[in-house]
């Protein structure tokens, strides 16, 4: 058997292969347009990895989105079971069958078990049945799920291989775009159990179900599309009520429009520090240790949107609705009023309740439904708690790219681990993606804990470089004068600078 090694690189063939849009969210992005048209793609994955759902959705999207009829060949589950199982996604296969758009072929080899076997036989009839079904509904898409059942029940591996080879051959000649699923036993290892990839290896898609730090993580990877391009690597996906959603990491056109329109931060002094306010489609990160007023800044930002008549969603991952309302009231902000006016939506959920993909999809759904001009996330670090570093990075990347495409202003908070100075994982992963970064720090001066705020980044705009002292009271946030005569504030251990030194420094900066 001529086994191919996993990492083998093929020379790039310069050939144009037309693509068939699958209609599955994110998959067409990975496939640079879809599956290679008129060809067969093998989808391998372990048990429970989502192969059958992918297969059914591929057929369903074709019928729903592109008016392309389909044939679903099942070697494993009974048609009735498949129909029943996908009802939860809202896919009414019975209706499509009645409309003549779909045929489900029951080819479960178990039927054969009651038959007597006498002498030589072959499986060419299966191809005839598939051909017949394709002609009957004028199918453009075919799914064969899954060929393993055939191998295990029929046993004669060589014979079955030949059948599959013939399948692929005749399906390709019929001009249909086929998806064949096959089961594998390991997540990383040989592509499939029976070496079928040798026959249908032109295009291989792998779905994985990995347990990572006690959390389930689904990924999808296009291993190869011969003669055609596709995105490389593993991409996380999730199975939602609407089917499969793949989250292309860099989903991510960098063509996100940018605006010069400013929006109010909710604090006049802060607007001044940023050169007139945040940009209306920017991502703002507020970073600081616990108790420095991140939630306050979030609240003010939210209120400012409402005051301007803009819709806003507040995603709270650390506090309950009641806590938020009470806190806001203590700063003189009435969130309830804005909520009743329909301008504010508060979404409270502990991050532990779902996986990162689900969080992201929830956020997206909320945004699609409410259509806010601004969102606030308090806090991103809460996510850090429940995600692996890798998933967190993907989460942040995805979120920011989505926000940018929607032209929504987003303010995210991040909690630093140490009281004085320091940085958090959030900062490290999000900083390059953000347009503005506000740093809040405790400053130890003369035996007192004071608070300092500075804008360290404001993309596309002038911003103040000084570190300002601020005070929080019953009326909110008050930004005072810059700290004078001290240095090393950001590291937390402020040190007085003598008058002489200060003047020397001034001279130096003037020279530059």
């Amino acid at each position, binding site marked *: 058997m001529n086994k191919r090694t996993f990492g083998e690189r093929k020379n790039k063939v310069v050939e144009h292969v037309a693509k068939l849009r699958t209609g599955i969210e994110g998959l067409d992005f990975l496939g640079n347009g879809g599956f290679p048209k008129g060809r067969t793609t093998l989808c391998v994955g372990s048990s429970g990895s989502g192969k059958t759902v992918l297969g059914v959705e591929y057929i369903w999207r074709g019928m729903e989105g592109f008016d392309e009829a389909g044939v679903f060949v099942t070697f494993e589950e009974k048609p009735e079971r498949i129909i029943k199982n996908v009802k939860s996604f809202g896919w009414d296969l019975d209706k499509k069958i009645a409309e003549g758009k779909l045929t489900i072929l029951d080819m479960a080899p178990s*039927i054969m078990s009651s038959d*007597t076997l*006498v002498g030589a036989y072959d499986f*060419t009839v299966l191809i005839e049945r598939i051909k017949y079904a394709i002609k009957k509904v004028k199918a453009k898409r075919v799914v064969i799920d899954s060929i393993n059942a055939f191998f295990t029940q029929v046993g004669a591996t060589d014979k079955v291989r030949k059948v599959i080879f013939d399948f692929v051959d005749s399906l390709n000649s019929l001009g249909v775009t086929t998806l064949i699923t096959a089961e594998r036993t390991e997540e990383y290892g040989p592509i499939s159990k029976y070496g079928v990839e040798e026959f249908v290896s032109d295009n291989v898609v792998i779905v994985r179900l990995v347990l990572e730090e006690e959390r389930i993580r689904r990924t999808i990877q296009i291993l190869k599309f011969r003669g055609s391009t596709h995105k490389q690597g593993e991409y996380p996906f999730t199975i939602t009520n609407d089917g499969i959603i793949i989250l292309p990491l860099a989903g991510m056109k960098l063509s996100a429009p940018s605006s010069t329109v400013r929006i109010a931060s909710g604090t006049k002094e802060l607007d001044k520090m940023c050169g007139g306010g945040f940009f209306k489609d920017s991502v703002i990160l507020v970073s600081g240790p616990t108790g420095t007023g991140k939630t306050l800044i979030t609240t003010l930002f939210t209120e400012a949107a409402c005051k301007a008549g803009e819709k806003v969603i507040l995603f709270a991952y650390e506090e309950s609705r009641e806590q938020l309302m009470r806190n806001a009231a203590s700063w003189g902000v009435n969130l309830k009023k804005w909520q009743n006016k329909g301008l504010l939506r508060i979404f409270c959920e502990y991050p532990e309740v779902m996986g990162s993909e689900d969080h992201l999809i929830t956020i997206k759904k909320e945004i699609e439904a409410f259509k806010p001009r601004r969102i606030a996330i308090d806090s991103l670090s809460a996510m850090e708690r429940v995600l692996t570093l890798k998933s967190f990075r993907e989460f942040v990347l995805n979120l920011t790219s989505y926000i940018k495409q929607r032209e929504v202003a987003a303010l995210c908070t991040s909690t630093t681990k140490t009281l004085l100075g320091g940085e958090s994982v959030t900062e490290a992963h999000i900083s390059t993606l953000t347009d503005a970064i506000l740093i809040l720090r405790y400053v130890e001066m003369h035996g007192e804990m004071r608070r300092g705020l500075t804008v360290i980044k404001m993309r596309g705009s002038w911003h103040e470089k000084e570190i300002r002292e601020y005070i929080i009271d019953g009326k909110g946030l008050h930004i005072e004068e810059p700290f004078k005569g001290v240095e090393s504030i950001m590291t937390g251990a402020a040190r007085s600078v003598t008058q002489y030194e200060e003047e020397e420094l001034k001279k130096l900066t003037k020279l530059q």
Partner: protein
Amino acid sequence: MAKERKAKPGRKYVLKLYVTGQTPNSVRAITNLKKILSEEFKGIYELRVIDVIKNPQLAEEEKILATPMLSRVLPLPIKRIIGDLSEKDKVLLGLDIL
């Protein structure tokens, strides 16, 4: 084997043989079956040979997975035999006659 293997008199056997065109397996199955029928079922059988390439809908209705396939439609219950029917005893056994 000295066992009585004659089909019961007065009974009528309705058989269908599904084949795929003129493939070697199909041709062999037809030859083998006709021989068995003339030896054991003279005058009491009705055979229909169905080419599933010409009549794929019939293969679909019967959910046929492999050919050649012999189906005993009558008497009930339905019995199915897959293969080129090269062993007479096994065929008779499969037809529930032996």
